[in-house]
């Protein structure tokens, strides 16, 4: 299926990034979903655990921005916008040392 193929490619890219970063844990992944991508945020979030299972991003927080811009040249796809790599000894979302834990859960 189209969306499965897109997700498989994202998984491949995340693994590639993790290798470049010498296997350090990825703590946050930001995706941009095009208006003509045939993919919904709900579907993406429900499939995400299987996309990142076994990768250094399997505990990453997922941020999704869904675009309604038909004129965007990337409207047919999903863009991996940025990833955050955990620094050695860094905190995980929800850990007591995680500054976001003081601010409550992400919106």
């Amino acid at each position, binding site marked *: *299926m*189209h969306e499965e193929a897109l997700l498989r490619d994202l998984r491949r890219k995340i693994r590639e990034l993790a290798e470049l970063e010498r296997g350090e844990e990825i703590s946050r992944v930001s995706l941009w979903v095009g208006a*003509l991508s045939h993919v919904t945020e*709900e579907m993406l979030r429900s499939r995400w655990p299987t996309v990142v299972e076994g990768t250094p991003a399997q505990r990453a927080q997922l941020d999704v921005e869904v675009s309604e811009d038909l004129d965007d040249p990337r409207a047919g796809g999903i*863009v*991996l*916008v940025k990833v*955050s790599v955990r620094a050695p000894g*860094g*905190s995980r979302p929800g850990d007591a040392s995680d500054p976001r834990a003081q601010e409550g859960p992400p919106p």
Partner: protein
Amino acid sequence: MTDRTISVDYLARVEGEGALRVRIHDRSVDAVELAIFEPPRYFEAFLRGRSYLEAPDITARICGICPVAYQMSACHAMERGLGLSIAPEVRALRRLLYCGEWIESHALHVFLLHLPDFFGVPDAIHLAKGHREVVERGLALKRVGNELMTVLGGREIHPINIRVGGFYRTPAREELHALRPRLANALRLAEETVRLCASLPFPDVENDYEFVSLRHPDEYPMNEGEVVSNRGLRIPPARYDEEFRELQVPYSHALHSVRRGGGSYLVGPLARYALNRDRLGPCAATIVREVGLEPVVRNPFRSVIVRAVEMVYACEEALRIIDGYRPPERPYVEASGALASDDCVAITEAPRGMLYHRYRLDATGTIQEARIVAPTSQNQKRIEEDVRKVVERSIDLETEPLTMACEQAIRNHDPCISCATHFLSLDLVRD
């Protein structure tokens, strides 16, 4: 210590899952082989050992575009085998749910996959540049289909509210009536779509299809009916295996279906329309007359019109069901007593055509055997034959335009196999 953020800006791509191998010798086409690489997913195997109640939710995962079709075929198969009778109100709600899926799936196919071919652009993004209103119309229709699926199914993809015997929860009248204004607008948009599609230029092609679909005594078929064809076939769904069989081909992971003792056949909108046009509702019948659509459409490129007509039908049928809706006394019925059955069989009409499910249950209701024949595999051989005709007609074209022509021939039928979008690799050998 803080995390380090890396900007990536990587656009995910779809790797090719389909390839077309064409061998041409002395200006004649020796072989056309459509190969699908998508790996087998073994759904039939891992249904074994699971409860009959799990079949609708497990099989829904087979397709992200038509999960309702898998849920409907699984529910009807189990209910037939277990002798469960469904309340008329539940039956109407299922039909309404199917209307949502037809609208959503047809809008995806017509606007995002098929129409760009007729406007001479590579995809919907380019179509939006010159014809923004057309793409916006498609997205509006798709949204209405998704809304119907969300209200009835709990969510728009892989609904979670459907079960053997009915629904976990049925909606209140007000919830359905709230959809009415958007559905009425969708009906108008679908009618405009038929007019637009009928005005397009089409290649002069006619294929001699054996059309196969369900036929119901009173309705345009969705959940029930006999299996009929334009060559005299008329059987109950339980006799499907006597008339059809699946074949493995060495060059593809996708199975091919054929008539026993015969050849390819075609399921889907062209077949449903050819065999059931007298069952269309008044709005669909009126627009068919207005645009002068022929009673049997044998030009596969013109399937874009028929899909638009079926969107009109699905919108008007959804409005009819909502206007007459009364919540059932109970949202579902349950099976009781011994659950053993060799006879759990059903066919329903997925947007792309007939979807066959057959199960065998033991006394505890555990699935012992499962068999699923999707419309994609039923059409696979016929699609190959269509592509062969395209190659024969266009034998002198360079590789790039020939690839485009072959892709278009595939998109006439099926948006669900990966090669329906633009990444077919063409392996052309000219001896």
